[in-house]
């Protein structure tokens, strides 16, 4: 497969970036998107040029590192997959592929295709946890009965890998889907109810502080999420937030 890649190159956070064109040949349909970039980088290194910098870690759709905007969509044209699970068979011989970093004020570019997503970490740190005493008298989680529906919904919310595709897909660069998944996974469980009020208030306050946009319910985040996180989580967070605000 012969392709033309248009890749965002940016030396550092301060530099002005631009799209650079790279022709590439010999790409197999069974290669993953990242393997295709590996081939490109090998060629660039052999020619003495600077390789394209991109984030990756597990390469099996779990870590959420490999976040690229591919032909105008986060993680490319396939659904429910991350960039590392995207196969080149989704493209045709002769295609031009535009590859850009996820764009948001809260995701500043570090270099080329790598962005700083530590804003997500700070949202998590603001309340995405439960306080459990582990000093010898830990209660077995199975001793607290959990409704099957709530357990399933909580688990579904917990599958969010924090890749940032929701922010990248949203025309407003809103992080509501991410934050709501992290709020929901605890709000649905009895263990999470104890700190529910301060959790949702603190996490939403941090989300706003990071400079993400406001959700306008376009639903783009749900469609592009590689883990299929549902918009129901945003509605749940809105309910949680409103009742928490009224409580005090």
């Amino acid at each position: 497969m012969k392709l033309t890649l248009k890749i965002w190159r940016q030396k550092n956070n301060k530099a002005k970036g631009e799209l650079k064109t790279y022709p590439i040949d010999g790409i197999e349909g069974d290669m993953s998107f990242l393997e295709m970039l590996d081939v490109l980088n090998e060629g660039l290194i052999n020619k003495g040029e600077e390789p394209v910098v991109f984030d990756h870690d597990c390469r099996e759709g779990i870590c959420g590192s490999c976040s690229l905007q591919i032909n105008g969509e986060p993680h490319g044209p396939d659904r429910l997959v991350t960039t590392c699970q995207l196969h080149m068979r989704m493209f045709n011989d002769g295609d031009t592929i535009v590859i850009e970093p996820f764009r948001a004020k809260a995701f500043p570019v570090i270099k080329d295709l790598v962005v700083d997503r530590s804003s997500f970490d700070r949202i998590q740190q603001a309340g995405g946890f439960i306080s459990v005493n582990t000093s010898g008298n830990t209660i077995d989680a199975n001793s607290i009965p959990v409704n099957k529906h709530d357990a399933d919904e909580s688990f579904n919310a917990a599958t969010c890998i924090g890749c940032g595709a929701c922010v990248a897909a949203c025309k407003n660069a809103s992080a509501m889907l991410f934050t709501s998944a992290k709020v929901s996974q605890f709000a649905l469980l009895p263990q999470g109810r104890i700190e529910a009020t301060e959790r949702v208030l603190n996490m939403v306050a941090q989300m706003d502080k990071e400079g993400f946009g406001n959700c306008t319910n376009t639903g783009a985040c749900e469609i592009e999420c590689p883990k299929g996180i549902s918009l129901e989580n945003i509605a749940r967070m809105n309910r949680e937030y409103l009742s928490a605000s009224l409580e005090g």
Partner: protein
Amino acid sequence: MAILSSSIARKVAMALSGLFLVLFLAQHFTINITSVIDPDTFNNLSHFMGHNFVVQFIAQPILIFGVVFHFIMGLVLEIRNRNARQISYNSFKGNKNSTWASRNMIISGAVILAFLGLHFYDFWFPEIVHKYVESNPLDATRYYPELLHKFESPVRTGLYCLAFVLLALHLWHGFSSSFQSMGWNNKYSKGLRGFTQFYAIFIPLGFIFIALYLHFNQ
């Protein structure tokens, strides 16, 4: 006071003001459709709306506040949202994951606002002048002829119809979206979405029908 400045509070404020305007639209449509069915009823209802103290001095100011609030909040949200992505994508395929109506509420909203300007120029300001500046005597039969006169112009009729198409697009996303903003997303949401989409088509189409009916029945 954190709730008043949070992103979720702003969403809820937009939703509540939008729902209020949706209710107003239903009321406005109900009165306007009588102009097609029975002009006398239209005259009587218009006279009542134009001279009832509660409608004029309580409901009307609340309505104007609702419109202004919805517009200003929409503009504030749009500015903040644009600021949240300062560098645009070279390639952004919004059509792959969302509807045009949902992504362009600011455009449909701006057209509706411009239409409101024309609508005020056509009906509201002349009514204020008639009642409070010229202090004309009460006449409960003047409303239908005045309405008919306004829709003589094919340009005005066309502009009204165009605005109603944009109103349909605005409602198509906004009405159902307001429930999601207020935290309503459950097993009834599918049915509710069906109702909101029916409303989004029925009401603007009804207004278009009224405008065309009046234009072609001079």
